């Protein structure tokens, strides 16, 4: 698209919808399916073909207290989730999610998900970390699995159901930014058709953000290249806050040095972690549940083992995940996908050799603040949570918050379908009512978006290659985040990080591009993604620096304890002046008694 065209929105392709969903992962597709079944005019935008969304990579399973293998109920699930969240999760939302779980998982089964089966023909479930029966008494078996390809099974099934429902898709379309009308209300969004390089305007009464996570911020991570947190950055640029951005989950068992995930299912099926002495060390950190402690606990334990010199390998920089005592048939049947990963990337067969693992950035607990209807919340001047008209967020990019300071394995797939559906139901009701907001032809404020697009259009330089490049800045950003904002943080590393980020930001402003094409211009896309990552890095650094306690995945070496007195509250970060405000945690569930914060022992 030429600058002249960019300057003249009348030349853009313009579409009108009742609602637009940004993201075709599990969250976006579940939501789209609900809306497609009503008469609303809805479209889904995704920067990759839907089944390439990163939900496809989820391995272990989805939690629901079906009780197919051992006694279970949603109340225990709720307790575990709250305890797992280190009491930062909102208990109303957690109750809502755990109560919906059994029904929504069965619904997925009816949609066609090829779950593994028990001998009785019901859905197979496996134990996962942080799960218990009777409020912490004994290990529960709650994670519903389709071998170790649960995410693939769910994502493909949801896409298939959307094909059946006739959902409209804009595939390989990159959402650039939210569009507001003259009143400052959300009125749609601008997208870039990647194949043709054309800018398009989607006008809509409502926008649902479902753009997934952003672990591309870190050097080693389990995420896809596309997980750059675009929706989150769009929200910040729209002047709205992000919540709890200091909480990033490091998964204990990433392939050491590379980052690919070896699912918690490996430990659920009986795998153990060993240090250089061959000792199954988790007993020293979680005497009761050992390897099935919550992820933050296990990740820290591994980091401590390595730090104290008990790491394996020539550089003593990892520990081993050992499944060799399990029946090879069990591994082949229940964990075929991760056995493949170890074979491909390490050349090791888990059936007869332990594999090197180290914590790897995996999941963001923070995100766009919402209520449990998926409505995006901001804070009024009086400090009250107020919904933003016409804007919803669901899935990993949202912070409802059901995961608080640490997510339990198997709870994210649940989160994305539960709140994907809930948001769609709320939206359906809202759309059925009269349109009190944005008119189809009201004037829009497109200037900031035009400026941003024009900047990257003009950044192309024919001159001899500049020293700097998008790839180089991205690498340095990932290294800085890994170094200063990893499993352990301190005042010093975080202050250092804020300074590094400012410098990186300055480089990004100046960097030039070499690709002038309109069609499939990846360099330009990566530049915009990097802008988004940079914004989120800053949100993380400032939120983490401010939180002077250790809670869940946020471990401050200089403040090693949880401090409920001062910090039992959610952080809200605004882009403008890096302003931080806070909001209380919900401790009053919908129908049952709340769980008071207690010391967290596994």
């Amino acid at each position, binding site marked *: 698209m030429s600058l002249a065209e960019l300057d003249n929105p009348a030349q853009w392709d313009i579409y009108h919808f009742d609602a637009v969903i940004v993201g075709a992962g599990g969250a976006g597709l579940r939501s789209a399916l609900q809306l497609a079944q009503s008469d609303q005019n809805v479209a889904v935008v995704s920067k990759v073909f839907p089944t390439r969304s990163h939900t496809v990579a989820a391995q272990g399973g989805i939690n629901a207290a079906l009780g197919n293998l051992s006694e279970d109920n949603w109340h225990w699930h709720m307790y575990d989730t709250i305890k797992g969240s280190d009491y930062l999760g909102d208990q109303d939302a957690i109750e809502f999610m755990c109560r919906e779980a059994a029904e929504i998982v069965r619904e997925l089964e009816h949609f066609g998900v090829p779950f593994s089966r028990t001998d009785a023909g*019901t859905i197979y479930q496996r134990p996962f970390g942080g799960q218990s029966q009777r409020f912490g008494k004994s290990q529960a078996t709650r994670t519903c699995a389709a071998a170790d390809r649960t995410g693939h099974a769910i994502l493909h099934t949801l896409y298939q159901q959307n094909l059946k429902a006739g959902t409209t898709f804009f595939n390989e379309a990159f959402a650039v930014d939210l569009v507001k009308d003259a009143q400052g209300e959300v009125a749609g969004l601008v997208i870039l058709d990647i194949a043709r390089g054309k800018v398009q305007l989607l006008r809509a009464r409502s926008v649902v953000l479902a753009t997934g996570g952003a672990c591309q911020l870190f050097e080693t991570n389990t995420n896809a290249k596309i997980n750059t947190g675009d929706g989150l950055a769009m929200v910040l640029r729209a002047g709205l806050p992000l919540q709890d951005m200091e909480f990033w989950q490091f998964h204990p068992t990433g392939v050491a040095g590379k980052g690919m995930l070896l699912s918690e299912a490996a430990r659920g099926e009986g795998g153990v972690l060993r240090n250089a002495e061959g000792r199954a060390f988790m007993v020293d950190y979680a005497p009761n549940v050992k390897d099935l402690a919550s992820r933050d606990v296990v990740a820290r334990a591994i980091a401590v083992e390595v730090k104290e010199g008990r790491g394996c390998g020539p550089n003593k920089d990892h520990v081993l995940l050992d499944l060799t005592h399990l029946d090879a048939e069990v591994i082949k049947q229940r964990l075929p996908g991760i056995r493949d990963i170890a074979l*491909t990337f390490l050349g090791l067969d888990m059936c007869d050799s332990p594999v090197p693992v180290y914590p790897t950035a995996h999941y963001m607990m923070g995100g766009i603040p919402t209520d449990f209807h998926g409505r995006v919340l901001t804070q009024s001047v009086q400090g009250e949570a107020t919904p933003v008209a016409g804007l919803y967020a669901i899935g990993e990019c949202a912070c409802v918050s059901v995961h608080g300071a640490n997510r339990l394995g198997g709870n994210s797939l649940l989160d994305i379908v539960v709140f994907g559906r809930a948001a769609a139901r709320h939206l359906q009701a809202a759309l059925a009512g009269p349109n009190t907001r944005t008119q189809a032809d009201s004037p829009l404020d497109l200037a900031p978006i035009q400026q941003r697009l024009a900047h990257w259009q003009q950044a192309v330089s024919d001159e001899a290659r500049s020293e700097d490049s998008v790839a180089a800045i991205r690498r340095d950003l990932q290294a800085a985040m890994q170094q200063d904002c990893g499993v352990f943080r301190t005042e010093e590393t975080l202050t250092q990080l804020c300074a590094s980020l400012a410098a990186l930001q300055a480089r990004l402003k100046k960097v030039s591009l070499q690709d002038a*094409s309109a069609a499939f211009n990846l360099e330009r896309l990566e530049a915009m993604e990097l802008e988004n990552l940079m914004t989120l890095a800053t949100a993380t650094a400032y939120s983490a620096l401010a939180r002077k306690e250790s809670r869940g995945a946020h471990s401050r070496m200089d403040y090693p304890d949880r401090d409920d007195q001062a910090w039992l509250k959610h952080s809200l970060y605004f882009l403008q002046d890096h302003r931080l405000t806070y909001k209380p945690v919900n401790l009053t569930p919908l129908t049952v008694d709340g769980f008071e914060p207690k010391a967290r022992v596994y």
Partner: protein
Amino acid sequence: MQFSIYRYQPESHDEPYMQSFELADDRINDDTMLLGALEMLREQDPTLTFRSSCKEGVCGSDGMNVNGQNVLSCITQVKSLPAPVVIRPMPGLPVIRDLVIDMDLFYRHYESVDPYLQPTQPNQTIDLDHELLQSPQERERLDGSYECILCGCCATSCPSFWWNPDQFHGPAALLAARRFVIDSRDITTRDRLEKLDDVYKTFRCRNIQNCTASCPKGLNPSQAINELKSLMLKKQVD
């Protein structure tokens, strides 16, 4: 190491051409995947264009033709390839730019086999208090067909698909078709088989087996197609 890569830059060149690239050997380790190497080459020339996402062979974005074989670059070890490594877009579909092809037709075939479970009559409500029961043996039959990642390596290496890309469903779509035909929960088996019973849709398959040879997930579409044919026989006998 030498690479020779197909370039098609429609905005600046009328014709596609092959471009040579060189990557220092010390940057290639035993565990370097082709995608990693391509990313290094992209730093030399940021206009080099290819799709990629998950980096671990589950999203199916980065199918390409390497030394004549369709592969996913993210799970192909560079060291395993004889140099020069010749990389082209997967054959048989239009090229958008460099290694990026237009997979529309491929997706349309997938859509046209009704790739979704139909466990109930259209107006029947579903009972969400219970799952549809399926024995482990019945479930096991789905192994080998539900794992498809729609990368297109099979269809774009299939001569029958090259010959009739708009009419022959191709291996991936037929694999998906089989997945629903054999699912014990689906009640539309007969209709599905009837719909597939067509000189073009299914019966262009000539058992060439390129699909099976090129599937990065180790699936066997060729066998699936034969199974569909024998299921049609069984249906006639029943």
